[in-house]
């Protein structure tokens, strides 16, 4: 029974250390979860799908576009609001709206810790610089 203070002190230290990420995050204002500011297109207000869907699922959408356009020759995309777009990442996505890849795609990908997409190694964007192969 004489070891009780020692055991309690050890337990407190252990719990404190294990919960470091939680209290450190709560104390540190800088580590607060805020999405990075991304550059939104100036003139266009509506993307090919609602923003929430694009945020979570743009990769699936782009993959569908890729497969349908490249393999089946279906090049037109009918958006949720009835508008028709070309499944063309250069013309539809980056030359009109998201003109700066670094301010839009990469900023968010860096923040989310997602590997950089290699789309723009082939598809032309405003910068047309190849990223090093993955």
């Amino acid at each position: 029974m004489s070891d009780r203070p020692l055991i309690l002190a050890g337990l407190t230290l252990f719990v404190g250390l294990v919960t470091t990420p939680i209290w450190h995050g709560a104390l540190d204002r800088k580590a607060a979860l805020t999405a990075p500011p991304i550059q939104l297109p100036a003139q266009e207000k509506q993307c090919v799908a609602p923003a929430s869907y694009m945020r979570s699922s743009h990769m699936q959408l782009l993959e569908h576009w890729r497969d349908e356009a490249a393999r089946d020759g279906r090049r037109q995309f009918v958006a949720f609001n009835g508008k028709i777009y070309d499944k063309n990442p250069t013309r539809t996505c980056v030359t009109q709206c998201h003109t700066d890849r670094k301010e839009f795609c990469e900023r968010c990908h860096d923040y989310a810790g997602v590997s950089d997409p290699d789309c723009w190694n082939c598809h032309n964007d405003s910068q047309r610089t190849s990223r090093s192969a993955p």
Partner: protein
Amino acid sequence: MKITRKDFLRISGLGLLAVAGRKAVRAVAERTSERASEQTSAPFAKQVRWGMAIDLQKCRQKDGCDRCIKACHSTHNVPQFSDRAHEVKWIWKEPFKNVFPAAQTGYTREFFGNLPVLLVCNHCDDPPCQDVCPVKATWKREDGVVTIDFHRCIGCRYCMAACPYGARSFNWLDPRPAIATVNLDFPTRTKGVVEKCNFCEERLAKGLGPACAESCEEKAIVFGDLEKPDSEVRRLLRSRFAVQRQPELGTGPAVYYIV
């Protein structure tokens, strides 16, 4: 267990009926699924078979003319490497004696041997490149265009080995620095994929003809539907003598040379 003759006949009769019924059901199901797949299948027009006829005499009217090559390569962002080892080509010229080694005698070689012949991918009926591709990155579309999905190409170059016409090129280097002006409407390629002439499928989708045929002032390149008996290319192939490259290989090239 004892089985009477009556039972035996009854059981075998029922068994036969069941087999016949299953066959009928399967046939009906197949027909309906066929119809469904027809409706959802790709929008490439069936009964179209794109092909090309190149009039060699018209082609060599202007000495050293390379308008079609320039038009194609600028339309498709084909890189220009000075080192032949890195060369990428969609449309190019070779001397007659190399293109048609069997189609000449010692006498014709004197005159024809070194005349340039324009070459593109033959868009074969039975393309060997498609058969060897391990990832199905290259395939023949329903309209006969042999196309490549650059996303899927892993750069193994089996197709280059399989193609008897040398129509395919490999990107050994990043092609972007070797493209003078980039056409935004066509993607460039990346290091490690194979590319070749695509019969301008991106222009066909817009109802345009291939860039090479359009750029030729002599109208030496005629493009059209080989399935349509009254198309210009069919009329030409009816009226003039034309050959294919190495037809004995059974690949069925869709590019004809009027000699």
